[in-house]
């Protein structure tokens, strides 16, 4: 699976939108998108996408993508997390395209999805931050006994079910993004989030007990 960050920074293809004619290296791709896009409104593009027109969907995504990114940027500071969340939003838009009511404005539909994906991201981030705060709090309570704390943390981590420990370690210790953890384990992003959250809750109980 190619990650958002890879598609933005790791690809050999220059990443320019189709309308930027002065910097258009991939002519075949540009032609594909242009064939569906000119003179079409977002509503029409969405209706074409519902009818199975991939080019129309690509054109729509490229058109509305920057607005989604700016919308999410107000809520998410980290660039890599922002791109992952944007990718997740685009995927949710693709998978729920049957829920768009033809003839209606596209924007309220798109941004309602973006808002929920962003809110879910916020919830996960908050849980992660709470754990970090908890770690600091516990280390302060432990005073100079950092070694004891480390042993306690290792024991608590060891007491977790394998999948929860794996998800927690990848996200909070190795610092992987959700998409990276998802790729590595083969589980969905949602599953990784749930596992990491459950691990966090269990760790909190174990360490504060």
């Amino acid at each position, binding site marked *: 699976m190619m990650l958002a960050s890879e598609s933005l920074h790791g690809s050999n293809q220059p990443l320019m939108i189709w309308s930027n004619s002065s910097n258009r290296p991939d002519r075949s791709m540009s032609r594909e998108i242009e064939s569906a896009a000119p003179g079409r409104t977002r509503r029409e593009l969405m209706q074409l996408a*519902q009818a199975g027109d991939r080019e129309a969907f690509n054109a729509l995504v490229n058109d509305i993508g920057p607005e989604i990114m700016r919308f999410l*940027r107000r809520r998410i500071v980290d660039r890599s997390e922002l791109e992952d969340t944007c990718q997740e939003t685009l995927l949710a838009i693709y998978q729920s395209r049957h829920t768009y009511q033809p003839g209606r404005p596209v924007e309220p539909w798109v941004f309602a999805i973006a808002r929920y994906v962003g809110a879910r991201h916020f919830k996960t981030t908050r849980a992660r931050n709470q754990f970090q705060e908890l770690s600091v709090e516990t280390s302060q309570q432990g005073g100079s006994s950092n070694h004891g704390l480390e042993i306690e943390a290792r024991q608590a981590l060891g007491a977790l079910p394998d999948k929860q420990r794996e998800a927690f370690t990848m996200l909070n210790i190795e610092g992987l993004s959700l998409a990276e953890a998802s790729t590595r384990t083969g589980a969905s992003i949602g599953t990784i989030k749930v596992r990491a959250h459950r691990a966090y809750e269990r760790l909190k109980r174990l360490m504060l007990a």
Partner: protein
Amino acid sequence: MKENTQIDQIRYDRMLAPLIADFKPVKPIWTAKVRLSMWVLLQAGIMVVAVAGGRRMNVAAKLLDWEFLLGFSGLIILGLAAASTALKAAVPGESEFSNRKLFGLIALGVVAQVLILAEPVHAIGSIHQFVATGSYCMVCTFLLAAGPWAGLFWAVRRAMPLMGGAEGALIGTAAFAFSFAATRLGCPIDDFSHVLIWHAFPAAIGAGVSIAAGALWLDGLKRYRISD
């Protein structure tokens, strides 16, 4: 400024391309109004069955009792409002599920319950009879709610519900409010204890189970997996 330029220059279709295996046409879901109308037709049929198959002989006279009529109407309105909200909230951008709507529905539910429960209190003669007649009403409450609940659950799941538990609560409220109203119309026992234990409690339990079912199976975003 620089970041805005970067954002504008991203190829978003390429960001998405690895996640889309095959791009197929999809059939847009019916509007919330159409789906609600079909559900109401189903409920109307069930109401007719409940009255025709019920043991109450004085349906017309009972409907002239203003407290019963208000309570009955309250349950129907509650069911309609909950079903409509559930269907609309499952379509992104259609209608947000707000706290104001939630409190409105709860208030309506409480008023309807109080009115429909305003029945005389009779002494329970035989526990065996109380349980036997009550169990029948309880089973009817669940049976009459089962079809509409499944139908509404499917209709909501077919869209994109974003708050599973809340959607489940709305679906349960809608199905069991109608079922409660239908069984009250068909049941000849006008007794507070009977109505509370064998009609109101099962409806509340059904709605509670629906919340759990919604939380488990109705979070639209959970279903969207990023495949390798």
